[in-house]
């Protein structure tokens, strides 16, 4: 078995909603979540909007401070000391959803991609330029793109630049926050192929966040499904997609429309909207919409158990 690059145990993040002279309410964005990412693999995190995917990822990278839980990176416990964080940030990188807003419009591409090199004192002067060019070539861009500004590029090209910038520090872990949802399908395929190729060549580890199940399935080795701040199911991509155990995963997969009109599947239609994470329902958080609800679901929170090998589910059906 490959070794674990990141392991998170019991992470929590509550955002307070302050009210004047009143006790603050809390948004339970991420509530007691544990997962791990193996070296050289891709962990896909899927779920509906507002379920805490992005918060989970940002807490993992210490971009926001989690309220509880432990993070182990490459075997070492994460600390929030400045020196440690700088070293940690050299080994991790991020690609955001919207490439137009994550690239500074007043910096040339050479500056954008070279900035991480400058911050971490990795290369200077001509050496830096050479490194930038090498990075751009690795994502399929050329020398004459180097001194242009972000607005001169198409969405797909901008996302490639963002990938090049992420690669600059030669990271172990890259976090992809919906990297293709702002792109057209034909361009999305280009970016996905690029990410796949880079992973094979450089042995990168990815954490991919997406609400598009097709994308998640395509490039992930392991998948975690989130609902209202909790991971309800995780396992290898085959286990989760071909043998989903949690009722939410089953509903989510059946709701995903297939581009093949001859496939007529039985759709599970969930009623209602996801409840608010400010006052999550007691017991299992999914019980308000679950079709296989039992009396115990309203009272007790299901434990996150290993039902099959490396296939974890949090549901009373499998206790």
């Amino acid at each position, binding site marked *: 078995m490959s070794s674990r690059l990141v392991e998170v145990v019991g992470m929590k993040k509550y955002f307070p909603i302050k009210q004047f002279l009143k006790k603050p309410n809390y948004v339970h964005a991420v509530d007691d979540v544990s997962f791990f990412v193996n070296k050289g693999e891709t962990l896909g995190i899927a779920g509906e909007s507002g379920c805490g995917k992005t918060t989970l990822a940002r807490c993992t990278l210490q971009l926001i401070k989690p309220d509880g839980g432990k993070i182990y990176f490459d075997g070492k416990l994460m600390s929030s000391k400045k020196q440690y964080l700088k070293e940690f940030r050299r080994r991790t990188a991020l690609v955001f959803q919207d490439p137009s807003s994550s690239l500074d419009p007043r910096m040339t591409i050479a500056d954008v991609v070279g900035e991480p090199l400058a911050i971490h004192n990795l290369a200077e002067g001509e050496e830096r330029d050479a490194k930038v060019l090498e990075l751009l070539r690795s994502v399929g861009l050329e020398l004459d793109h180097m001194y242009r500004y972000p607005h001169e590029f198409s969405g797909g090209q901008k996302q490639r630049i963002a990938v090049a910038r992420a690669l600059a520090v030669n990271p172990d872990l890259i976090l992809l926050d919906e990297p293709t949802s702002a792109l057209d399908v034909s361009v999305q395929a280009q970016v996905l192929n690029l990410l796949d190729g880079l992973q094979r060549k450089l042995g990168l580890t990815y954490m991919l966040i997406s609400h598009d199940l097709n994308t998640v399935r395509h490039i992930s080795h392991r998948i975690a499904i989130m609902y209202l701040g909790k991971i309800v199911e995780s396992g290898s991509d085959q286990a989760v997609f071909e043998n989903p155990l949690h009722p939410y995963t089953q509903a989510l*997969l059946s*709701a995903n429309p297939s581009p093949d009109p001859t496939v007529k599947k039985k759709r599970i239609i969930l009623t209602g909207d996801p409840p608010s994470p400010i006052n999550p329902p007691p017991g299992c958080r999914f019980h308000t919409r679950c079709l296989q609800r039992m009396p115990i679901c309203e009272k007790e929170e299901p434990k996150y158990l290993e039902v099959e090998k490396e296939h974890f589910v949090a549901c009373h059906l499998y206790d």
Partner: protein
Amino acid sequence: MRDLKVQFFTYGGVVQALDGVTFQVKKGETLGLVGETGCGKSVTSLAVLRLVPAPGRIVAGEIKLNGENLLTKTEGEMRNLRGCAVAMIFQDPTSSLNPLFTVGYQTSEPFIYHRNMKKEDAHKAVVELFESMQIPDAERRARNYPHELSGGMRQRIMIAMALACNPSLLIADEPTTNLDVTIQAQLLELVKELQKKYDTSILWISHNLGVVAEMCDRVAVMYAGNIVEIGDVKTVLCEPAHPYTRMLRECVPTTSQKKGELTVIHGTVPNLINPPSGCRFHPRCREPLDICSKEKPAMVELERGHFISCWKYTQKGCSEK
């Protein structure tokens, strides 16, 4: 709609957004319109309502609704048609609902303007309509403002508003792109049910092939202001003939089949101020012929009801005849 041409007269030049688009939507059927961003899907839908924004203009063609040509109507006559005979659901319900009025009031507007109902009657009609939309607690919801509702609920309101006057054509411009898949599934079922009930024709615009496959009876594939292939959903999506449709189909990852390299359509959608000569797809095509860069291929019928605009088939069709 026949041979519709829409051009935008900008300072940079004339953008040929639609270049001879022809299609029909039959009564009670759903026609899907798919394509990449900027291929003219939304302009097509706006053209049907004659709402193409300046500096755009419909320069040629005709649009017929129930046998009447919409392009010769006056602005006043169009106003009576919009929201009544033709209605539209927009992509983003948050920005298309007015935040200052309750959703009940906004939905009652078509009743008041088109049906000359009194306010109280209109309100009753709205509540009934909301109930048929499976909006729980309709009476109370009608008194809510848009920000008090969730995205799925807002989109339901939009659909209710569009269906208020029982239109003969409903244009849905990417109505589910901003929604989560479970909510999307709810809405798709709802629209299907309502369509059966009211026998409405739908022009369903989307870039999601999955949604189109579930919703539509026929599909038209657009590329750079042209329809390149049109036909039955099963034919177009399972045995696509046009190289663009085939590549579009292959470059989408699916949950059922596994990995491997995705097909990539190289390059980007061309600039429509200066579209490529001949077939507009030829610079990105996998199997271009010499003639493709010179002349525009005509629409030919491959099988019954399956039309395609590609030289490969035009020539074959000629030789077979």
